[in-house]
């Protein structure tokens, strides 16, 4: 418990609130790196995932990428890219790493969201005369939103946790107290930094959980609803006209 209280004391010490390595500045750098990486990953993964979900083709590739690529050793990849691209391209190397890390969750969120939609709903939309694009945006994307937000949530969490390694290559972020504290053996600093990242991750998770809940279209919310019967109650002896 002593180390824990030391860590909290470290967090609120005045040295941490001014200067080049002030906590607000580190937080800003951390969020900026996360936001840029997830945005770029979304631009790549969402269209791809939607295409796979809409056409049903390429599913195996999507599954493989979503599964295996999540296990990229981010630290090793980042260091490798820094070596390959050179010290003048460190931000690019780090962002490529985080983008690659975010893509699997976003891809999975996009295509599972579309896959989970009942085909009959899409048929119904087509039967109503909607164009393909209208079906896509108004029906498929809307209905796939909860799973997509779930994918965004997973991606954000993974990237927030991983951006701590950016401090190793001089990009700042909330990993700085950890990476500086270990060689200095200042474990209150290390724990303080780790706690801040953990709290940030939890806060983002809660916000996105609320967003995921809000993303469910009103018509799909479970709960007491009055459902209009489409056909009258009939005895079981009648041959079934509705297909199973």
């Amino acid at each position: 418990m002593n180390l824990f209280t030391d860590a909290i004391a470290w967090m609120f010490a005045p040295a941490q609130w001014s200067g080049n390595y002030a906590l607000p500045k580190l937080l800003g750098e951390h969020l900026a790196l996360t936001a840029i990486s997830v945005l770029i990953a979304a631009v790549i993964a969402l269209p791809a995932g939607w295409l796979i979900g809409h056409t049903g083709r390429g599913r195996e590739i999507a599954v493989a990428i979503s599964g295996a690529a999540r296990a990229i050793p981010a630290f090793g990849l980042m260091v490798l890219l820094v070596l390959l691209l050179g010290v003048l391209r460190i931000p690019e190397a780090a962002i490529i790493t985080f983008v690659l890390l975010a893509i699997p969750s976003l891809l999975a969120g996009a295509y599972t969201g579309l896959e989970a939609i009942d085909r009959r709903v899409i048929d119904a939309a087509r039967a109503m005369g909607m164009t393909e694009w209208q079906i896509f945006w108004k029906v498929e994307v809307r209905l796939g939103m909860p799973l997509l937000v779930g994918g965004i949530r997973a991606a954000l969490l993974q990237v927030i946790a991983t951006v701590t390694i950016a401090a190793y290559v001089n990009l700042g972020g909330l990993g700085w107290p950890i990476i500086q504290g270990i060689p200095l053996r200042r474990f209150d600093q290390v724990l303080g930094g780790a706690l801040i990242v953990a709290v940030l991750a939890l806060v983002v998770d809660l916000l996105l959980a609320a967003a995921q809940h809000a993303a469910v279209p009103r018509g799909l919310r479970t709960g007491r609803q009055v459902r209009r019967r489409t056909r009258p109650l009939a005895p079981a002896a009648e041959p079934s006209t509705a297909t199973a």
Partner: protein
Amino acid sequence: MFTARGKRSVLAVGLVAAAALALTACGGDPLAEPSDDSGSGSGSSDTIVVGSQGYYSNEIIAEIYAQALEGAGFTVEKQLNIGQRDAYMPEVESGEINVFPEYTGSLLEYLSEDEVDVTAPEDVYTALTEALPDGLTALDYAEASDQDTYTVLKSFAEENDLTSIGDLKNVTSQVTIGAPPEFEQRPYNPAAAKEVYGVDLAFSATGPTTLESLLAGEIQVADIYTADPAFETEDIVALEDPENLIISSNVVPIVSSDIADEVSEVLNAISAKLTAEELVSLNVLSTVDQQSSADIAKKWLEDNDLV
């Protein structure tokens, strides 16, 4: 949701996972270092165990110690490449490892709770002997060191007429020093340089890319350790430190006190011959010529008539 088939595959996966977990116990302790000789280090009182850090330069010095001791008739067991201080210090302190090549300044920083205020080689060594826990002895330290520096490109030094750290005042444009992250908090950080030498330096935590950043011109000053082969392979020069701002960190054998007398002659003879330039050359043989530490050590001992 769970069909019979589902239950069976879940069971199968569970069994495989349990078996895999059980099988990991067969591998032995992954943290134990492979040792050269049979028999345990602490068990046999005649065997001297020589350890080294997970750092190629330290491994070369450990090989030198080990081969010299073998040449002097001792039975030696090597446990090389253990890792950082947090990993090996417990074993050194407990006596499981008997001989360890260390660096006076950084070991002193590691052992001291408070900030270290001594910097000259002799003072650091004295402070270290006081700070060492019981059971450990520091033998003679060598001229060879692996300490922090304020290093610049030779061209930059010539352009701005720089010989010592204080001369950086002459530079009109912004001067940034790149170093590992912890440098910013050390007693010889840019803030201290401002106090002692009156120079204004910005800090960049370049860490593992420090040398490349210096060569690429991203930073003007770099913290390159004195044993770095770059001093031979690149055109860089360390600025002089006449006010002894930077803590000295010389190579020193840390040995178990009970064998200190036996091994001191052999190891002190090595420390007497191990100069700063020699250590850099040994490191170049390792990084540039890719020779093994054992070969480098053997040749050095032969060249210096120590074996």
